[in-house]
């Protein structure tokens, strides 16, 4: 069992012994004493006596509150009962046990009990033979694509979407590196073969040198393709000589070019400008005046976005290697122009009369008279209806005047990328020399003598029918679908190579570079300081950008953010402005800043700042931020936000679509921030459906949890971690009351009927009390109260465990407790700074596996 799933312990409070139930309680205690006497009675140490006095009343054979009996601990930790020792330690450290209202330990006694439990655990772990075995796992799709790219010395895997056919990776609590979860089947193997072939076909070319051509595409020859479902809408070109992105949900396509006829370099020249910035009010259009007007160039699934200047035609020139079959497309990447009506763009046309009536009434009158005279006038819905204004839209947008595409061309023939792999004059004869360096990179270790023989034989046999170059490509396919490439962390890999490989996959999700392999080989990454320097340098140089994007995303399970998206009817802004993207970016920006500044980890919880833009400011109810989409550091003064606990990403991901769930939020905070893993409800529990027709607070609905002793034993521990967030609605916006939409009429059977009456409001109660007696009235106090030393250590430990999970592809186990403690100590020495803590993890035996 892994450490993170071990926390099954939970404690009941209502104990018939104390409230004087009908049964003779003494008998129970004596029985339990008898059963434990051999273990605890004879010991001289005071601590077992302390435990008998303070724990046994609830945790005896008969009662076993929270499914825990003191007897489980035996004399000393063993492999079987270690989880109980660790749980006991955690509960005593956090002062959640014994419950404050049951039994009180003096601070001295608590200290003594902690020392006792800790020393027993440590003594036990010393006796264990400590070996860390590597846990091989399949590369996930991300790592596979990056690794293929780097083994083949390419800038990307290709614009011909070669990875399109891969089977999606399943996640384990957000992690896509989890070995158990990354399964392997014949489907996988077949898709890998196909994907590698596609990459190679766009890299190594065996035929004639393809001819280049130059295609001029004037605005009139650019075709618009709608990106929403309403396909086949007729073209509406409104201006001569310009392709105008009047509807942001359309893409510009080039039938004259079609698709790339062969792999090669293509020069793409685009004449474009931004226009009409700042005419409409940002509240109406959703386009912030401070934002750049942008144009995205899509080459297959690779997207590059450019900022355009206002009313000045510039030439964007790209030279890119395109795979055969690549389609080129231009788009307007804005998230604006959905603020009216149901979000359909067409309602934006009505912004013009709104705007002109406010700022330029004479122009308005002028246009009205033109529209009145027009035969197309829509008179049913009044002159200001959107139908009448389609010609006069003035939203900020890109315009494209012409596009020129030239290619394919080559700086040399055969192309350099091919020569880099096969040499100038490739032949199947030389297969071994050609394939060895490729296999050496791919397998992340030196290739053994004879190991490639079978592949070489295949290449030489196939060369007779398909030619040398195609046969060599088959050899490369074999290298890239071999287990030594597809599986990381195989035991066959020498320790040094494995460390280089692991570090590279941790930071960059790809095969290690030669320099790194050499450095490790020369023993230059053997110390904490060297590791720290290497990692700091990687962060500095952009060599760990993949980690900065992937790890926080996985840790906070952000893939789930829209699994239960806020209701689109009630939370329109959230959907119209694609706020979930801003929320995810807020998390990433906060994390990246922490790394850049090497901040202490506890600041993730205690910070009074975060990184927000105008969209997030509007959710968070903040006024003084610039009107644009750039995330900037912002200091909150209300004590409610800042750090992870105030982030929309967390608050939204843990809410239902119409309501919030303190339990979901509590479990999220416990699992992902505190490293506590509450037991899921037993299978026979019936969960009542919240009935929003009644004016009940979620707290009243959940009262059952604490009334039923069966539920209470866990929920008294869980719930206080969640109630504090009740003032945050499903999008993470602040609210003082619940709004109950319907009236409370009942039908003849007494069932409530939703009516037309005014919504009622119900006061929110965001207070709760932890089992250790700490109480809070709302989020502000909660945030202050949880900043204890115990919780700080829990948070840092949790971070370490999450990082180990990401890096090792498996959650740490109970037996790793002491090793994790050592990482924690190292982290503490460095004031819990994040880069140092990451380095301590990498330098630990749990990562090195030595």
């Amino acid at each position, binding site marked *: 069992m892994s450490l993170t799933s071990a926390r099954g312990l939970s404690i009941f409070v209502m104990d018939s012994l104390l409230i004087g139930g009908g049964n003779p309680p003494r008998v129970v205690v004596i029985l339990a004493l008898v059963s434990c006497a051999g273990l605890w009675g004879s010991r001289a140490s005071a601590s077992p006596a302390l435990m008998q006095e303070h724990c046994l009343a609830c945790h005896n054979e008969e009662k076993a509150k929270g499914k825990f009996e003191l007897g489980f601990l035996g004399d000393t930790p063993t492999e079987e009962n270690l989880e109980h020792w660790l749980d006991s330690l955690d509960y005593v450290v956090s002062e959640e046990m014994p419950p404050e209202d049951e039994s009180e330990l003096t601070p001295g006694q608590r200290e003594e009990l902690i020392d006792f439990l800790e020393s027993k655990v440590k003594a036990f772990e010393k006796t264990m033979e400590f070996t860390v*075995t*590597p846990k*091989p*796992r*399949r590369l996930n799709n991300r790592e596979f694509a990056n690794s293929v790219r780097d083994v083949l010395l390419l800038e990307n895997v290709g614009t011909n979407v070669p990875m399109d056919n891969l*089977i999606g990776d*399943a996640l384990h609590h957000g992690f896509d590196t989890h070995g158990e*979860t990354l*399964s*392997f*089947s*014949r*489907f*996988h*193997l*077949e898709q890998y*073969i196909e994907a590698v072939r596609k990459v190679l076909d766009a890299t190594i070319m065996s035929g004639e040198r393809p001819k280049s051509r130059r295609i001029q595409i004037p605005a009139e020859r650019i075709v618009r393709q709608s990106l929403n*479902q309403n*396909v086949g809408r007729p073209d509406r070109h409104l201006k001569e000589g310009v392709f105008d992105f009047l509807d942001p949900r359309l893409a510009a396509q080039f039938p004259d070019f079609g698709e790339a006829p062969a792999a090669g370099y293509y020069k793409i020249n685009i004449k474009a400008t931004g226009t009409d910035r700042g005419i409409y009010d940002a509240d109406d259009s959703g386009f912030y005046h401070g934002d750049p007007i942008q144009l995205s160039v899509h080459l297959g699934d690779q997207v590059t976005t450019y900022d355009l200047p206002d009313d000045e035609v510039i030439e964007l020139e790209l030279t890119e290697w395109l795979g055969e*079959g690549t389609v080129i497309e231009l788009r307007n990447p804005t998230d604006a122009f959905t603020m009216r009506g149901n979000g359909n763009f067409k309602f934006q046309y009505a912004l013009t009369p709104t705007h002109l009536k406010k700022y330029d009434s004479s122009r308005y009158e002028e246009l009205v008279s033109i529209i009145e005279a027009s035969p197309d006038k829509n008179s049913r819905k009044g002159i200001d209806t959107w139908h009448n204004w389609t010609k006069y839209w003035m939203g900020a947008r890109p315009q494209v005047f012409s596009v020129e595409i030239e290619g394919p061309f080559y700086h040399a023939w055969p192309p350099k990328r091919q020569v880099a792999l096969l040499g100038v004059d490739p032949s199947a004869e030389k297969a071994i020399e050609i394939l060895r360096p490729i296999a050496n990179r791919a397998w992340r270790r030196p290739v*053994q003598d004879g*190991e490639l023989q*079978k*592949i070489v*034989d*295949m290449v030489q*046999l*196939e060369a007779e029918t398909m030619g040398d170059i195609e046969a060599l490509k*088959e050899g490369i396919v*074999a290298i890239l*679908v*071999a*287990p*030594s490439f597809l599986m990381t962390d*195989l*035991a*066959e890999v020498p320790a040094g190579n494995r460390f280089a490989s692991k570090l590279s996959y941790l930071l960059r999700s790809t095969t290690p570079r030669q320099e790194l392999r050499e450095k490790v080989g020369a023993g230059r990454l053997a110390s904490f300081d060297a590791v720290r320097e290497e990692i700091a340098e990687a962060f500095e140089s952009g060599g760990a950008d993949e980690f900065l994007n992937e790890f926080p995303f996985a840790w906070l399970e952000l893939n789930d953010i829209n699994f*239960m998206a806020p*209701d*689109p*009817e009630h939370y329109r802004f959230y959907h119209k402005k694609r706020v979930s993207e801003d929320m995810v970016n807020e998390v990433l920006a906060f994390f990246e800043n922490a790394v850049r500044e090497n901040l202490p980890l506890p600041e993730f919880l205690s910070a009074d700042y975060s990184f927000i833009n105008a969209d997030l400011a509007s959710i968070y109810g903040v006024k003084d931020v610039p009107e644009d989409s750039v995330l900037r550091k912002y200091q909150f003064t209300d004590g409610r936000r800042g750090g992870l606990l105030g982030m929309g990403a967390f608050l939204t991901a843990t809410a*239902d*679509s*119409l*309501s919030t769930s303190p339990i979901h939020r509590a479990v999220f905070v416990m699992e992902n921030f505190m490293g506590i893993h509450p037991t899921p*409800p037993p*299978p026979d*529990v*019936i*969960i*009542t*459906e*919240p*009935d*929003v*027709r009644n004016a009940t607070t979620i707290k009243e609905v959940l009262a059952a949890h604490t009334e039923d002793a069966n539920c209470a034993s866990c929920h008294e521990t869980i719930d206080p971690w969640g109630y504090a967030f009740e003032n945050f609605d499903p999008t993470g916006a602040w609210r003082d009351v619940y709004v109950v*939409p319907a009236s409370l009429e009942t039908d003849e059977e007494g069932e*409530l*009927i*939703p009516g037309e009456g005014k919504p009622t409001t119900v006061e929110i109660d965001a207070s709760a009390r932890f089992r250790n007696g700490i109480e809070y009235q709302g989020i502000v106090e909660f945030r202050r109260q949880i900043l204890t030393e115990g919780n700080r250590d829990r948070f840092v430990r949790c971070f370490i465990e999450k990082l180990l999970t990401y890096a090792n592809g498996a959650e740490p186990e109970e037996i790793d407790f002491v090793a994790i403690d050592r990482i924690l100590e190292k982290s503490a020495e460095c004031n819990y700074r994040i880069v140092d803590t990451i380095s301590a993890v990498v330098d630990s035996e749990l990562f090195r596996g030595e």
Partner: protein
Amino acid sequence: MHTDRRTFIKGIGGTLALPFLESNLIAGATTPTRFLVVANPFGMHPEHFFPKDFGKDFTMSRTLKSLEWLKDRISILSHTDHNMVSGHGREIAFLSGVLPADAQAFPEKNMSVDQAVARHTGAHVRYPSLNVGLGSGVRMSWTANGVENALISDPQRLYDHLFLNLTRKQKKARRDMLTRNESILDAVGDQLSAVARQGSKADAGRLDQYQTAIRELENTLAGRQHWIGQDKPSFDISHHYEGAATIHNEYHAFFDMISFAFETDMTRVATIAFPTNLSYTDVSGVTRSYHGTTHNGKMEDVTDELVAIESFQIEQLSRCLKRLDSIPEPNAEGSLLDHTVVLFGSGMGYGGTHSNRNLPVFVAGGGFDHLGHVDTRNESGENMALCNLFVTLMQRFGIERDEFNLSTGAFDLRYG
């Protein structure tokens, strides 16, 4: 690369569907029994799904109204489940009763019942099973290795997969490719043995998966060599995409292709999944998202939308079953439907409560002596293990076994 819809229609228009049985190509074919599984991710609003009364003479419920015509050939099972905790994520165990996380405890991992049947029927047909989803899907089909079967979720891809014939040149290319892949597997297998020799015990499990993958792929490659030579039946789908792309068209395309694959005996096992993220706003009265309506807080208008979505799902299934029922089974009595075991259900009871108790399940067709609406609880009022039903269904296919994963017996549903 996506082909646009126009090419799609052009490529297939005008062919007259004249089904012939693919498996006639293989000597000794007998009357087939088929298995159609249809599932959704959120279960069904229970008050509207389950009929109020039990027995053969029950009154059809609101959600199941469109199946009135099938009343004497359906068994609706109340009170079955897999004994699962409440919450999402259990629906992936619908067809096995076993979550992937617990699969190691079972010899056949979390193999789903469709795959258990496909292993039995697969040898006779071009495709052992078809697993499709509308747009995306519900994860529910798993192999005996505990690996999920990839879904086909694009109608174009399904069409190509099922009906697109290869040109002579393509056939040669395909054959060459299969041969090349066989060589690669051969070379890679060699590398694997070298790795395995040096590997530790810890490596063994994951390398086993790799080994199995190679072996299974080798087998399919050999099988595919046979089928490349045979032309596929032709199918006219041109009318499916006339006019706007609606949810109706989407459902029709998938159901029609699957039933045609049954008619022509290209496969005998198919699963169809309705995903969570499909938009049903084309259905009259529906404005909200599917998932949103399950969390209706008992508000009547939102619940109505949910029931409209669920009724729509059943109507689409009903339409497909009518079609199967209109075709007589060649060389046997009854219609295709009488030789097709239809299982509808979900691994989630009802999304509104996240309950995984009392799963909405019914069996139709398949030549059973159907029971109408059955209360499956035992004398002490405990729900029946849904795996009991799966045992019965497997036996219907002549699979000789009396247990499956969590089964406690077999469900008493007779046939013949």
